[in-house]
């Protein structure tokens, strides 16, 4: 699947997008975040805010317990500040 990062999550991870395959056992958004945090200090830093980081699966807002099976694109970003 494709992972996208925006705003300060993007800056901390150091890239805007990447391809990744989560290992078996990673079934939800929260589990995906836990797995990403173990990939390196930049990910640990990006996701240290934990539940404050928002996610979207295939361009729709997704809660931490949302299943990621079948997702083509998962995005992570800070709380939104438009308007």
């Amino acid at each position, binding site marked *: 699947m494709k992972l996208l990062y925006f705003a300060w999550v993007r800056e901390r991870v150091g890239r805007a997008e990447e391809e990744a395959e989560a290992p078996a056992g990673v079934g939800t958004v929260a589990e995906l975040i836990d797995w990403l945090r173990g990939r390196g200090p930049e990910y640990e830093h990006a996701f240290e805010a934990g539940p404050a980081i928002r996610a*979207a699966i295939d361009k729709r807002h997704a809660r931490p317990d949302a299943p990621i099976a079948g997702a083509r694109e998962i995005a992570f970003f800070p709380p*939104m500040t*438009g308007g």
Partner: protein
Amino acid sequence: MAVRLQTEPFDLGAEVARLTEGRSDIGAVVTFTGICRNRADSGAELVALTLEHYPGMVEEELGRIEAEARARWGLADALVVHRHGRILAGEPIVLVVTVAPHRAAAFEAAEFLMDYLKTSAPFWKQEETAVGRSWVASKAADDLAAERWKK
């Protein structure tokens, strides 16, 4: 779907004229324009805002919010224009227009659109001041404002 994303400023008068031209079934037009203040949240003088967005999702999310407003308040028409990129202090950022037979629906729907847009449309503001750039933190008051519309 009357939702538009653009980098250039918009013309409020021209947008309203386009929405109301040739219509005699409407009794109310409400517009809201969000403008870039010259103060950062820290109090420092702000030069500009840069708005980052999630292409594709922004249009879809604004479309969902707009469709909900149209259905819930029986609007005759609605428009959301949101800019992205670098926006100087004093320039407009966002425009919401609601058109309805009566004013109550137009006022309420405009507030709903702004409250929901702020908390669910994927935009992120970065402030630019003399000392550098910093991301704007989300505000609890905005979440509360959106909460009140939950049925």
